[in-house]
């Protein structure tokens, strides 16, 4: 009963003109902190997710060098290695979809079934079968717009027609008539969509389909482009660059270092298919985090000043409450309730504005993240921690200021205002 009474009294003191400026400033500050926390969380989340979920983060490209094919095959015996294939399958095969006026399809090879989380349908088993993302976007990332995503599940059973590069020799000069003739005579291949996969589970771009190695062999040129030299007569010569290196997939990002150590022991040269620079990330992270902390300190200072001013202007009321029988504990609780309601009101209004901004921005301006199958999340945990800090701070300041006021002579307090 006493608790409800205290709330009743608090509510009558709350939304007065003199609180309006404080409410406005704190709402804006908390809103900015929410935004900065979202940016910080995005940076942390992206770094963590790419390393944990993107299969390229646990992929190594091992150079053949002077090693034999058997040496390369024996890499499969290293613990935690789950796939050992030609580096032909490292890059996707890109091709325009002939039925569509614009956009492209990227097709990657399935070298380890666990890399894909099939949502509907099945994994490709036969030649020219593909799976596509549930949220499918067959466009270039620079053309990304929010309404260009297609529900992949609705395309199961349909087909795409593309041109195969199997018969093309990339080592030829691109102005060479033979090269042009090869490009004209490329085989048309019909791909059948047999299922969809969850691209957010491995953070693959939304334009990427997957197929068996046999399908990729049916599509990609055996040569991945050459390098040129000038002969003594001044003529350009291209050398064949066949795919001779290997692509190694490790079962988990945690075991990458182990495999790297083993490869080093065995004398292999290798590089990581995807390497995210931690220092770069920390640098990006530092800016929003530092600014959030500064703004939080400013918020705390403002809250402290508000509480001080409010309580010091209420000596008569506080003295009166004491005189009519409220205990020090009751009075502290009353003031705390008022201050918390005001601050949480600010936090709620901030959150509503933030949420609207979040929806608008993520749908309209951050579609690029959707293209990379990455969701910009609301940092609920960080926001909760922020609010807990604020509540604790208010409790401490409130108790301290109220205690100091109530130590004074009650009659003197009542006469003061």
């Amino acid at each position, binding site marked *: *009963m*006493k608790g409800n*009474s*205290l709330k*009743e*009294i608090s509510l*009558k*003191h709350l939304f*007065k003109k003199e609180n309006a400026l404080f409410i406005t400033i704190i709402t804006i500050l908390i809103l900015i902190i929410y935004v900065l926390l979202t940016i910080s969380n995005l940076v942390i989340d992206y770094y963590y997710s790419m390393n944990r979920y993107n299969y390229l983060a646990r992929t190594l490209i091992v150079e053949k060098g002077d090693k034999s094919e058997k040496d390369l095959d024996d890499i499969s015996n290293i613990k935690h290695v789950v796939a050992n294939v030609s580096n032909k399958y490292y890059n996707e095969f890109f091709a325009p979809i002939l039925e569509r006026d614009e956009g492209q399809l990227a097709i990657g090879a399935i070298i380890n079934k666990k890399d894909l989380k099939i949502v509907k349908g099945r994994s490709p088993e036969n030649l020219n079968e593909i799976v596509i993302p549930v949220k499918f976007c067959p466009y270039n990332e620079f053309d990304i717009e929010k309404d260009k995503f297609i529900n992949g599940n609705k395309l199961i059973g349909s087909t795409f027609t593309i041109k195969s590069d199997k018969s093309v020799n990339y080592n030829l000069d691109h102005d060479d008539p033979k090269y042009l003739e090869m490009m004209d005579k490329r085989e048309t291949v019909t791909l059948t969509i047999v299922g969809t996969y969850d691209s957010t589970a491995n953070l693959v771009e939304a334009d990427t389909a997957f197929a068996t190695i046999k399908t990729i062999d049916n599509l990609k040129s055996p040569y991945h482009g050459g390098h040129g030299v000038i002969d003594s007569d001044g003529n350009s010569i291209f050398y064949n660059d066949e795919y001779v290196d290997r692509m190694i997939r490790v079962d988990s990002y945690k075991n990458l270092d182990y495999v790297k150590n083993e490869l080093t022991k065995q004398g292999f040269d290798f590089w990581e298919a995807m390497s995210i620079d931690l220092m770069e990330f920390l640098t990006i992270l530092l800016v929003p985090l530092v600014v959030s902390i500064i703004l939080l300190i400013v918020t705390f200072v403002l809250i402290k000043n508000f509480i001080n001013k409010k309580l010091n202007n209420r000596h*008569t*009321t506080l*003295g*009166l*409450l*004491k*005189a*009519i*029988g*409220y*205990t*020090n*504990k*009751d009075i502290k609780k009353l003031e705390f309730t008022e201050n918390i309601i005001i601050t949480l009101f600010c936090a709620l209004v901030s959150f509503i504005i933030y949420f609207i901004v979040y929806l608008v921005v993520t749908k309209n301006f951050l579609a690029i993240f959707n293209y990379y199958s990455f969701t910009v999340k609301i940092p609920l945990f960080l926001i909760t921690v922020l609010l807990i800090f604020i509540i604790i701070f208010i409790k401490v300041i409130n108790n301290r200021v109220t205690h100091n006021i109530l130590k004074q*002579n*009650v*009659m003197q307090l*009542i*006469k003061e*205002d």
Partner: protein
Amino acid sequence: MEVESLEIKNITKKYITKSDEVMAVDNVSYKFLSGKFYAIMGHSGSGKSTLISILGTLEVPTSGSCIIGKKDISNLSDEKLSKIRNKNIGFIFQNYALDPNLKSYENVILPMYINEKIKKEDRKNKAIELLKYVNLEARIEHYPRELSGGEQQRVAIARALANDPDIILADEPTGNLDEKNEEIIFDILKKISISGRTVIVVSHNNNILKYADVVLYMQNGKLGVKNEG
């Protein structure tokens, strides 16, 4: 029938400053009876306000004891003293001490919030009755800023009566009022004492002598009886 409502025995209150020791109340003993109107007079600095603070349990004496309703409250905790204040004592202050954010009836209800004996649904009705008692039925929904000084003090009196206390303590209740309003306030306080409560008023105002049953005088911390009716 007169009953002893409040007794003080050998009350002393000393304030120790950096340079001095001030004896605000010096070994004061007195028995206050129900149904009587007491005036405590004296010059500024004589210890009147300190005495009334001690009578109202707002200050703890340096030594001595205070008995309210036959209960020695000398060594009680803040929580218990607060309860006694809430149920047994009503305060009236010179500056009215109304909450500016509450309407008249809401100010009167304020002490009732922490009195479990008064149900929530009865509070407003009781407050209205009390405002009628002090002739303010037309000002129930007004805020203090919309009331005159005399009206505000009457709201304060109604608030002091909220929990049916046995004792009313008033510190210079007419200090900010004109003569006409002084009389209105003293009339109400007299009415309250006749109803059976103990009314103790600290005042410089000689008009109080017309109303008081007993006139006490404070000088240099000591209490004397000027006139006992």
